[in-house]
């Protein structure tokens, strides 16, 4: 996994609540058996005016000029600013894969859906939860200033570049550690193999019907 330490980038504002994972990456693109290549279809139904197909040449498709990612002022965005319950719905990890493939490595919102939030950390994306007022202020500044950019410092736990004071954020210690170091958590868990085996022995004695069925 790609480590996440510090990130500076243009902020794109997605001003709607309950953005679901069907919206982030529609179902027809889930047929891929790869982890990459989803970027051109990120937010497909919002971004293009026609229906996307897995084998289509996206460069030939009509763009929706009203959608933020099609607007020059948000070109090269690395940070997505969003509203409540971002990432709700399906558990598809294709959603963070699509964000990552597009170049977005940080999503800031007042709240996230649980499974999406968890999936982000497995893919080097940092989801940051802030208070409503802080998110509102960031939306205002993003709309007001062309090229509005922020610096996310995970090590320090601060967002820099907004008006006024730096904004502090917190992330669960284990997830922060894995993200900062780009750690593969399967490897970490396998270091605890003895504990897992010990648990299995105990469990097999208590609930033998769960073993070898």
């Amino acid at each position, binding site marked *: 996994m790609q480590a996440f330490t510090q990130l500076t980038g243009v902020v794109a504002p997605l001003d709607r609540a309950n953005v*679901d994972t069907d919206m982030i990456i529609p179902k027809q693109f889930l047929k891929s058996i790869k*982890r990459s290549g989803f970027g051109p279809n990120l937010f497909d139904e919002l971004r293009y005016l026609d229906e996307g197909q897995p084998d289509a040449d996206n460069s030939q498709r009509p763009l929706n000029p009203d959608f933020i990612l099609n607007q020059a002022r948000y070109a090269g965005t690395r940070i997505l600013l969003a509203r409540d319950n971002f990432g709700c719905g399906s558990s598809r990890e294709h959603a963070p894969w699509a964000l990552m493939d597009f170049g977005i490595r940080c999503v800031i919102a007042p709240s996230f*859906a*649980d499974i999406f939030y968890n999936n982000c950390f*497995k893919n080097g994306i940092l989801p940051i939860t802030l208070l409503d007022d802080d998110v509102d202020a960031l939306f205002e500044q993003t709309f007001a200033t062309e090229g509005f950019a922020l610096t996310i410092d995970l090590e320090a736990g601060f967002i820099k570049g907004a008006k006024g004071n730096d904004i502090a954020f917190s992330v669960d210690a284990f997830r922060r550690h894995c993200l900062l170091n780009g750690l593969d958590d399967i490897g970490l*868990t*396998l270091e605890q193999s003895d*504990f897992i085996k010990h648990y299995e022995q105990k469990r097999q004695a*208590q609930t033998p019907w769960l073993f070898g069925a």
Partner: protein
Amino acid sequence: MAAKTLYDKLWDSHLVRQQEDGSCLIYIDRHLLHEVTSPQAFEGLRMAGRQPWRLDTNLATPDHNVPTTKQERSVGVDGIEDPVSKIQVVTLDDNCDEFGITEFKMQDERQGIVHVVGPEQGATLPGMTVVCGDSHTATHGALGALAHGIGTSEVEHVLATQCLIQKKSKNMLVRVDGKLGKGVTSKDVVLAIIGEIGTAGGTGYAIEFAGKVFEDMSMEGRMTVCNMAIEGGARVGMVAVDQTTIDYVKGRPYAPKGEHWEMAVANWQNLHSDDDAEFDHVVVLDGSKIAPQVTWGTSPEMVLPVSAQVPNPKSEKDEGKAASISRALEYMGLEGDQAITSIKLDRVFIGSCTNSRIEDLRAAAAVVEGRQVAASLKQALVVPGSGLVKQQAEAEGLDKIFVAAGLEWREPGCSMCLAMNADKLGAGEHCASTSNRNFEGRQGFGGRTHLVSPAMAAAAAIAGHFVDVREMI
């Protein structure tokens, strides 16, 4: 000893180790796999040279991409016309063969939607931890199991280690008292709950559903409710074990037998919240007041009783809410204050992991029996949840009732719930659907989904628009 909730008990009995930073290693008893979220996980295992930790906990079946017409199904995998869907199904077959994982392949009579197949086979049992790369895994919580959806990285993690790194959720109790009225079903109950708590109301919580309504409910009904816990934001939904649970599990192919059965039943008697257990949040509904529900918008929380009118953004004081109502109405092609019963339908879909079990098909058949689907309807699909549900329905003659009424009787799979196969809505089409999500484009590009119970979908198929099914039974 401190009183515990059902969730506390399930959590504690699967805790392998708690780290100093508070993260926990949780042991997984059952891992279900399907073709959409597993290929990259198997690829990850191969790249790292890893093998599955314990083969016997894994069970796979293709469901999302499989075609549902007899013609395509009769020739097996080669009959899948969409080449991309076919690759995904073939990849699951190849991966299961390579790693030695039990799979009910497309032509197996036990194939079906993974959340129908697990309980039906006794492969998901009370007291288990159950995971699957699908957010509707909460379904299995109906058996008193701790079940939730995971992403593909975690699919790989479970394959490689039999564990997940987790943080414990908070406890929420949703109690529905009283008795449901005639024609009001488990689907109406869960839609009413989501209408009450909102789509993010359960975020960060594990929900236990309890109260008289759940005590009286069948296992199929409990599965419908737990299935949609995620639509209320909760990864986990569950119901305590009682005699209904034990009677359901007994005799199923993967259920314990003989001496192990006696041991298991004794163990399962403890799978309920202690009387004095404390919940972080409690929601109480009166079941007798729940009417048949219909979603009008693009989020499951946008739901109302069938007798209601679609909301008008002009009557909403909160600016953000008014904007979200306007956006939903525009997408759905509806006017504020329009009666829900005036919404005309193009298609009807009875199926999905929410509502494709035998009880669902019986309820729908009871409504359409001796009647005819409205001429204005383009299509009405009935898609059983598994090959065994299909067999059972045919043994009861339900297929003949559906076909005689003008509905199509299909082969098992996820089908039009998310339209990864050929069954989908056209742009602008309204569908009465027994599935679980009414998001924009969910059932097809530009499609307009209304979530309802099987009985309400059947009634809508006959009328061509929404009607209160209570007037028809």
